[in-house]
């Protein structure tokens, strides 16, 4: 579709929906209502929103939806680290029942026993899955969960009167950028551990980094490379020895469910992105939940309320988190309940055996893909030669670039011509010309084979007809974007009104 920007559809006088009016009796009693607004606060000119009939608004967004490559329509392998798996439709149906959507968060507990039960039980299951002792669903995304972990770290050291001295947080370069950014925001100095030659976080460097100044260690394992740090227990032990806390970024724990847990690896906290590991839909980027778990000792620092059960009723417990140092609150109300509901339904449709199957198949799919791609001449993946990866692999196309000049971004654009995703990597590119692929448990063998065949086809093009790749995409929804203005304040246009101003001058 060659669909205009919504403002271009505006026609004076059209209406998209009609709004309830006050009843005549109300008007008789209070008048028009708006005359009472203090003069200083009256809106003088109506907002320049477009005026569009209902069928045209619908058609516009229907078309935009068709131009969006959701997991429901494509083979999801190319969004590495994002764990884009199947989100069962029955869970969506359940989450859209009025018994879920039409609840106000401040309703009295007696009127929300259903959703509290679900949140409470999901907490119990998360405890089992992680080995932690208590979860909060308040953080509404992975980064907010990391921020909350950093806040708990701060609270803990404050309570121990060590806050001033412990101002360093250690992470690794292949952990998520937010593992550094969120604690940095919370005032911590960030120390990055680089990998050793095998791709494991360098233990010697780590030893050198850990000290009495260490507030915490925040890390993903496996990291974005798919490499699992085998000595993780030594890392966490060392931190504990020095009085620091260990925080596990398990946003994507998809390869580990039922196989190993945060507890056994020595962590004091962890979080799961329910939209990654527990299949709730990504929604173009939220709403989401970063379900965060802690050991008993840290429970009292969590943001309130927690959800509890007195043997008869479920209730919001404000008492537990009553440390004067507690985090207080990180998000309004009680998190994103429908996401928790969908995760609950997903767990209840799989059970322990099913979660184990998820992890095993995710790892099987990944290692199958890994094996097949490594057989291609121009593909390589640094680190841990000949060993398995967990749920994803960070590849390098360095050879291809050297041979043909085609870069990983070029491959990315060309993949879109085949209706597939392909993700390079987080910046900066420690691995040259990187590509991070994660098949999860959702694609079938045929899907993976199709994805591989497509990549092979494009690699072949790179050697034989590089022009077609450089000028890609050709069959996608739009053509190559001129991004030259994106960093230029004179050119960038973040809104339509701004675009109009800048394009007329």
């Amino acid at each position: 579709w060659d669909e205009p920007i919504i403002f271009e559809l505006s026609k004076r006088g059209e209406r998209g929906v009609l709004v309830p009016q006050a009843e005549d009796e109300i008007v008789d009693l209070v008048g028009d209502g708006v005359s009472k607004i203090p003069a200083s606060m009256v809106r003088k000119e109506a907002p320049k929103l477009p005026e569009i009939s209902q069928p045209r608004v619908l058609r516009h967004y229907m078309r935009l939806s068709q131009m969006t490559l959701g997991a429901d329509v494509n083979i999801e392998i190319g969004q590495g680290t994002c764990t884009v798996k199947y989100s069962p439709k029955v869970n969506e149906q359940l989450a859209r029942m009025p018994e879920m959507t039409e609840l106000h968060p401040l309703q009295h507990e007696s009127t929300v026993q259903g959703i509290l039960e679900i949140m409470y039980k999901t907490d119990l299951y998360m405890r089992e899955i992680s080995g932690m002792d208590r979860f909060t669903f308040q953080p509404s995304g992975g980064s907010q969960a990391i921020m909350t972990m950093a806040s708990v770290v701060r609270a803990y050291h404050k309570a121990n009167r060590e806050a001033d001295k412990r101002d360093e947080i250690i992470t690794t370069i292949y952990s998520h950028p937010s593992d550094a950014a969120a604690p940095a925001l919370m005032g911590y100095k960030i120390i990055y551990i680089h990998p050793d030659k095998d791709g494991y976080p360098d233990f010697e460097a780590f030893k050198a980094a850990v000290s009495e100044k260490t507030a915490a260690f925040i890390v993903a394992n496996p990291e974005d490379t798919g490499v699992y740090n085998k000595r993780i227990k030594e890392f966490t032990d060392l931190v504990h020895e020095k009085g620091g806390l260990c925080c596990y970024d398990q946003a994507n724990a998809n390869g580990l469910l039922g196989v190993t847990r945060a507890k056994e690896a020595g962590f004091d906290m962890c979080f799961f992105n329910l939209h990654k590991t527990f299949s709730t839909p990504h929604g173009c980027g939220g709403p989401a939940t970063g379900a965060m778990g802690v050991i008993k000792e840290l429970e009292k620092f969590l943001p309130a309320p927690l959800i509890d059960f007195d043997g008869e009723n479920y209730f919001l417990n404000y008492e537990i988190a009553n440390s004067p140092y507690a985090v207080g609150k990180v998000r309004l109300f009680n998190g994103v309940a429908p996401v928790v509901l969908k995760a609950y339904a997903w767990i209840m449709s799989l059970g322990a055996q099913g979660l184990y199957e998820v992890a095993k198949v995710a790892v099987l799919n990944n290692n199958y893909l890994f094996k097949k791609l490594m057989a291609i001449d121009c593909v390589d993946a640094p680190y841990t030669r000949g060993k398995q990866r967990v749920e994803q692999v960070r590849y390098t196309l360095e050879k291809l670039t050297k041979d043909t000049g085609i870069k990983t971004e070029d491959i990315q654009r060309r993949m879109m011509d085949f209706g597939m995703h392909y993700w390079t990597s987080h910046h900066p590119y420690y691995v040259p010309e990187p590509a991070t692929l994660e098949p999860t448990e959702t694609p079938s063998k045929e899907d993976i084979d199709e994805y591989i065949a497509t990549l092979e086809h494009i690699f072949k093009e790179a050697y034989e007809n590089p022009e077609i790749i450089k000028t890609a995409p050709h069959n996608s929804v739009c053509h190559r974007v001129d991004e030259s203005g994106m960093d230029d304040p004179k050119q960038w246009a973040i809104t339509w009104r701004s675009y109009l101003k800048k394009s007329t001058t």
Partner: protein
Amino acid sequence: MKGYKSHPYIPNSVLEVQKEMLKEIGLNSLEELHAEIPDEIKLKEGINLPKPFQSEYELKRHVEGILSKNKTCKENLNFLGAGCFQHYVPALCDEINSRGEFLTAYGGEPYNDFGRFQALFEYQSLVAELVDMDVVNVPTMDGAQAAATAVRMAARITQRDEVLVPKAMDYEKFLIMKNYCAPDLTLIQVAYNKENGQLDLEDLRKKVSEKTAAIFFENPSFLGFIEENGQEISNIAHDAGALSVVGVDPSSLGVLAPPSQYGADIISGDLQPLGIHMNYGGGQSGFIATRDEEKFVMEFPSRLFGIAPTCVEGEYGFGDVAYDRTSFGHHRHEGKEYVGTQTALWGITAGVYLATMGPKGMYELGKTIMQKSQYAVKRLSEIKGVKGSLFTGVNFKEFVVDFNETGKRVKEINRLLIEKGIFGGKDLSKDFPELGESALYCVTEVHTKEDIDKLVVAIQECVKA
């Protein structure tokens, strides 16, 4: 092999396929996977979870059974607001946000996720018109997060570290901002006028200083009244070299002036009123708006989608504006705050809402709310011992009902109301002890005259009881 074979969600849970794939990678069983994980930390027993439901039907019936214990604002009459609002959600909003493509997209590029980029660019553009500002971000977690980031932006811009906030604000929101701004910024509360609830300008002038990064205030305020002195507050901020940061309820902007028109430098707010179901608080979604000046734009931590030309004449494309500001850029933790999954689907939904409502719809919405809430205040005031609105001055959508003279506690009244199928307003006695037994009521376009009359009768009975 262990595990749940032939599960509908996992194509490759079929045993034969697994054997084939394992063979391909030189293994014999699933157990040989995870070779890199040391045995000491592998689970020996597996985890202990309830037996899964053996069919989709049983799962559905089970969850429906649990959910049926909830009592909804649809079967009951709800007057709770306080940051999460019951507005009418046009059918188009649900239709669009339940489209599988939007629901299950995530981090694709402007080529294959073109629709996502356009829809979010349009959402930014639509909110921009509503607030009369040139820059709006991709949605953040909620209005509280938006406010926290807004004042952090102000602090970075001004290089100062004190923020003045109203005493008359949501205590939970205050806690969120406090945690998020710690340890860098100090929040200082400004008293409110006991008469009309508005910001106490005297106290404000006392507290503003050369350390002040921003004056943050809300309009309409948490307690529902319209802050009349917006321009004056902004002037005070600007005179002190601070920024004016205003939290706003977007549903009011069809009738109320946008803060940009009374001096705000940064606007924050929550999108939930714009076509998003309450979802037990899961519908919150924040936005931040500024002028299109580099010093503002470069301080956003969020992604900002921009429109751009493509190699085809006349075609629109989209991309990230100033990507390297963010923690996704090359600077990682030295980027602005952090970025990650937030609430994009609600942003798209708010866009659908605004496109559907149009200027006329937003005006009528505001007008109807003004009328109905004024009606409710009037009728409630007729009850002996009840003051429909504790403060003088005009309210939008919410108002503080004063029960002090009834001799009843709000808690008790609300308990009785539940029995009558009514969810009374938020009890303020804990967070605002100075107001005694009072409650924050919310009336929107969803309340008919009949609904309000029903409330009045019910309260009358509760007060008497």
